């Protein structure tokens, strides 16, 4: 059953359109990651869904309650949810009082507050700071205070707005671990926005890509990464090769796409005649000589034109009519002895050649 159901959400600030035509359904117990570039509307959407700000248009129901009609129940609904923001937000009071805020708003008894605040601080490893002024803590510690302030209220839906964007890897790992555990053990529904694709992939059951104020594609992260629906999504999910081409014929199940005189086979049903091939760099293999038993549909010679190291990988640009960028591990690049001007063989599986309609 959908715990959040949104249709045609539109939100603008003055003349600035932040969200439009947003349709989203979130299942109970699901972790959904909203990924997208900065300014694509992720934070605004989370605020609308958490009922912090009303949408200008659209239908929204949370916990099966239509929030557009039943505005009087907003506080009750909000109190069943929680949100952690990108910037660590703490109030100018003790860590204890910070964590107690949500419980005090709910009118919890002092003993109850005392017990739960202590438990919550224990869980994020901040018990020793219970009496400290929250503003004196480091950024990572403040974010953990903010997280325990949210979790102490036992939210059924947790919203995380780029919660680890400013944090060190250790604090990030701690927060991710807590979120995954709460989802698994308590069945908490989680919506997390992130521009970190790897984080989205790591945590989420499903991702939604936001581009320019709307959700452009949703699905399991593998689908979104391998089969982006259009050029902008492909660019955002890090597809290095987007090559315009034309579907010229069919060969069995495969489509033959011609690009700059070169024919490449694709196992994807072509969405149009004029297409763009989206090929991830890691799906392009390079070989020193023609491979003998390579079970690959696309195999052709090419010339290396650039070798660019990026951390554990090397981006290798090869020319074969069109330019393609292959992502090769540093070790493999060394073994192959890749250098500019070298002749190599390129192999690409037809399955890895994703086709998207070409935009005018």
């Amino acid at each position: 059953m959908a715990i959040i159901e949104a249709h045609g959400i539109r939100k603008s600030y003055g003349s600035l359109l932040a969200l439009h035509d947003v349709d989203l359904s979130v299942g109970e117990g699901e972790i959904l990651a909203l990924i997208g570039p900065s300014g694509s509307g992720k934070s605004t959407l989370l605020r609308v869904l958490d009922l912090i700000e009303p949408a200008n248009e659209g239908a929204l129901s949370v916990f099966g309650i239509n929030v557009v009609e039943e505005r009087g129940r907003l506080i009750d609904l909000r109190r069943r949810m929680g949100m952690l923001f990108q910037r660590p937000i703490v109030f100018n009071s003790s860590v204890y009082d910070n964590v107690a805020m949500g419980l005090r708003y709910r009118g919890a008894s002092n003993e109850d507050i005392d017990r739960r605040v202590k438990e919550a601080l224990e869980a994020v490893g901040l018990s020793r700071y219970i009496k400290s002024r929250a503003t004196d803590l480091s950024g990572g510690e403040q974010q953990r205070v903010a997280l325990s302030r949210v979790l102490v209220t036992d939210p059924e839906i947790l919203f995380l707005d780029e919660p680890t964007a400013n944090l060190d890897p250790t604090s990030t790992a701690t927060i991710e671990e807590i979120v995954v555990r709460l989802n698994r053990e308590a069945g908490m529904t989680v919506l997390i926005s992130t521009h970190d694709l790897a984080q989205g992939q790591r945590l989420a059951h499903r991702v939604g890509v936001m581009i320019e104020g709307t959700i452009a594609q949703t699905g399991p992260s593998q689908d979104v990464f391998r089969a982006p629906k259009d050029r902008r999504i492909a660019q955002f999910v890090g597809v290095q090769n987007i090559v315009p081409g034309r579907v010229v014929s069919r060969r069995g199940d495969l489509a033959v796409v011609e690009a700059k005189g070169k024919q490449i086979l694709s196992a994807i049903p072509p969405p149009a005649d004029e297409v763009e091939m989206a090929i991830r760099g890691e799906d392009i293999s390079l070989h020193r000589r023609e491979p003998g038993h390579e079970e690959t549909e696309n195999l052709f010679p090419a010339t290396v034109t650039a070798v660019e190291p990026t951390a554990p990988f090397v981006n290798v640009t090869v020319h074969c009519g069109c330019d393609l960028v292959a992502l090769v591990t540093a070790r493999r690049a060394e073994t192959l002895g890749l250098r500019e001007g070298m002749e190599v063989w390129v192999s690409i599986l037809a399955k890895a050649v994703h086709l998207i309609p070409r935009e005018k």
Partner: protein
Amino acid sequence: MVNGNPIIEGFIEAIELIVTLDPQVVEITIRSLYVSLTATFFAALIALPIGALIYFYDFRGKHGVVSLLQTLYALPTVIVGLVMFLMLSNIGPFGFLRLLYTPGGMIVTQTILIIPLLMGLTVSALSGIDRDKRYTITALGASRLQTVVTIISEARFAVMAGVLLGFGRAIAEVGSVMIVGGNIRGATRVLTTAITLNTSMANYSLSIALGIILLSVALGVNIALSLVQRR
């Protein structure tokens, strides 16, 4: 005396006046503190809730009101003095209160003088609570009243700083208390008006003594201010 320089002589005499707790100096200082502290108290009582209302309620012309308040920060004290003189004098509508040339009249005048400052600074203190903090309060499930209480308590130090600034303006101003109080010895004479008078009468030692005290009060306010702002 030492070398006949009236400034140095005056300075030495001034120190004597302060150290020996000269009755005239003490009396003027106490009156000055009494008038300005009372004025600040009443101004805060009026300006803080209204400032909060202006911040929390959206109404047409809100922006204009805030701009007007900020313009009134620089309200010339003699103008306030003149207007209040006319109001409180026998020809004015509040003449029957018999407040002209009394400390009470001075308190009312200083109260009116610093109300815009306190209101404006309250609005900006509350506006200093950033958007994300307000979102956080809402997301934590605060009711309308709980939101107001949390924001005010979060802005308490900035509001306090505004009140201190208001007190600083009240105790240091000379124009309106001179006009409304009349600088009557033993009745309405305060630090600033006494300095003005004694300087024009070449009674430098008393002026310098009162000047040192006024400066110390200003210094005290500033120290308090920086302590508050460091929080």
